[in-house]
């Protein structure tokens, strides 16, 4: 089942096409990332499917049912930044959300414990640190025990410890089988937690695929280093090497042809009497894939 499906979803602000004919399918049970540079239409798209922004044209369907506001009560979502009444306590804020979502007030303490804010439940929201605000937003999104959790830049502005906490929380929630949609421009974050991703650029959807597929590329790239000076000569002689580049640290970046791999390279070098002290197969990171996609589309 598709959790969310959009058809030709479009939003124009005057002449600016913030989102242009977006066709998106988010399957159930995945951790789905929406990637894109700032201003690429991530938040606009999420704003539309959550009812906050009126689409210029196009449509969307939640859980194959429709887009009625009551369906949103089964969705937990935070967009851009945690939004609460600043002079109210966590409990007072969550009571409002609970009433909107028609959830029992008993849930409030449960979700506060989940995100580790139970002890601070009677402090005003404005006294919270950014990390605590972000965690309260996740608590609020978890109130209704949602089928899908939508987080827009959940680690924005957090310190490394805060980022690690939020990442851990997302992984725990994902393990419980919930679908998570994550909009982010922090690519290594996404690589650590997501299974699927799509890329937006200038309001258009330009790629959708699985994170695990990004590591598989046609050519293999290997980093190799040796104290022996003959290394460069030997690499030049090898037929499996299609590209050779010296790095600043004296090592080499080698691109091998499709049939070869680091193991074969090592054996070939050993045959030539060269032993290496550093040999790493370089997997393409999501970041590189992302930049490649953006470059190809430009």
């Amino acid at each position, binding site marked *: 089942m598709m959790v969310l499906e959009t058809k030709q979803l479009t939003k124009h602000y005057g002449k600016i096409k913030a989102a242009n004919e977006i066709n998106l399918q988010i399957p159930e049970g995945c951790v789905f990332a929406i990637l894109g540079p700032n201003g690429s239409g991530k938040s606009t798209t999420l*704003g539309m499917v*959550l*009812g*906050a*922004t*009126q689409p210029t044209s196009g449509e969307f369907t939640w859980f194959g049912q429709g887009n009625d*506001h*009551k*369906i*949103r*009560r089964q*969705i937990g*979502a935070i*967009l851009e930044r945690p*939004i*609460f*009444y*600043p*002079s*109210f*306590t966590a409990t*007072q804020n969550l*009571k*409002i*959300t609970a*009433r*909107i*979502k*028609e959830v029992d007030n008993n849930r409030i303490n449960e979700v506060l414990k989940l995100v580790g804010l139970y002890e601070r439940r009677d402090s005003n929201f404005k006294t919270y640190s950014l990390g605590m605000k972000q965690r309260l937003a996740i608590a*609020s999104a978890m109130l209704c025990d949602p089928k899908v959790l939508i987080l827009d830049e959940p680690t924005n502005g957090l310190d490394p410890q805060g980022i690690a906490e939020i990442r851990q929380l997302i992984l725990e929630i994902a393990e419980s089988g919930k679908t998570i949609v994550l909009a982010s421009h922090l690519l290594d974050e996404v690589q650590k937690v997501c299974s699927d991703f799509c890329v937006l650029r200038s309001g258009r959807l330009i790629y959708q695929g699985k994170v695990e597929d990004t590591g598989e590329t046609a050519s293999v790239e290997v980093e190799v280093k040796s104290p022996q000076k003959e290394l460069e000569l030997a690499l030049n002689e090898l037929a499996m090497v299609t590209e050779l580049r010296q790095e600043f640290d004296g090592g080499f970046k080698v691109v091998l042809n499709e049939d070869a791999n680091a193991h074969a390279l090592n054996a070939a070098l050993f045959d030539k009497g060269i032993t290496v002290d550093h040999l790493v197969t370089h997997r393409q990171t999501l970041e590189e894939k992302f930049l490649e996609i953006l470059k190809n589309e430009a």
Partner: protein
Amino acid sequence: MIRLISIELLKLKPARYFWILLVLFFVILVGIPIGTYALGSWITNNVMPDESPLKDIIPFYDFADIWQNFTFLYQYFTVLLSSLIVINVAQEFSLQTARQNVIDGMSRGEFFKGKFLLILSLAAVVSIVVFLLCLIFGLMYSPVTDTHSMFMNVEFIGAYFLHLVHDFLLAMFVALLIRRTGIGVVVLIFYGWIEQFAAALIEYAAGLPFLASILPNAATKVLIHSPFNKYALSQTFTYIRWEDMAISIAWIIILILLNRWIINRRDL
């Protein structure tokens, strides 16, 4: 409906501005009749000679008259409650909580309905309090207390209710346009002055008194005409005119539609 009003109450109960403005307003509600009584007795005791025929005839608290006297004076303080509405509504947009409410599963229609119910409830509660105050002060000081005279002209409470609903809807409209609490309140207060200025221009310079009388603020102010002219032996309306009521209700409907339209249409 109960869910929507309870959401509004959850948003008000912990809010300090709500209690400050409400308490201030109720202090004024009680303070005016007490102050007037003190002033009245000072005038009769010190200014007027004992043999004056005017002594004891200023019937501020007299039944039948009291409804118009009180509601007329009270409507000058509605701006306190209108400010409360401006803050309440503008805050939802400046803090983006309206957006979060919709994301959490409220429809835009429900958001409007919640605010409208808040306006109706506040107007109703204040009207009831004013009704009770008129009754209490009347029973204390009015020379006539027979049931017939007591409830004669009680329809001024209804007119006061309409005036409150209208002013609150106007405040909501200002809040929806300005979306900032501080500037919103300032604009609301300035708007009252600007409209009076414009009305004077329209009435005297352009010679269109009817047009001046249907401007939004003027339309509810004329609902309750000043009762005090009659004590100076000049003419005034001591009843509510149907045409005034029609203009007032027309504005209420226009403002309801405008406010709902803005909320339904706008990106939050």
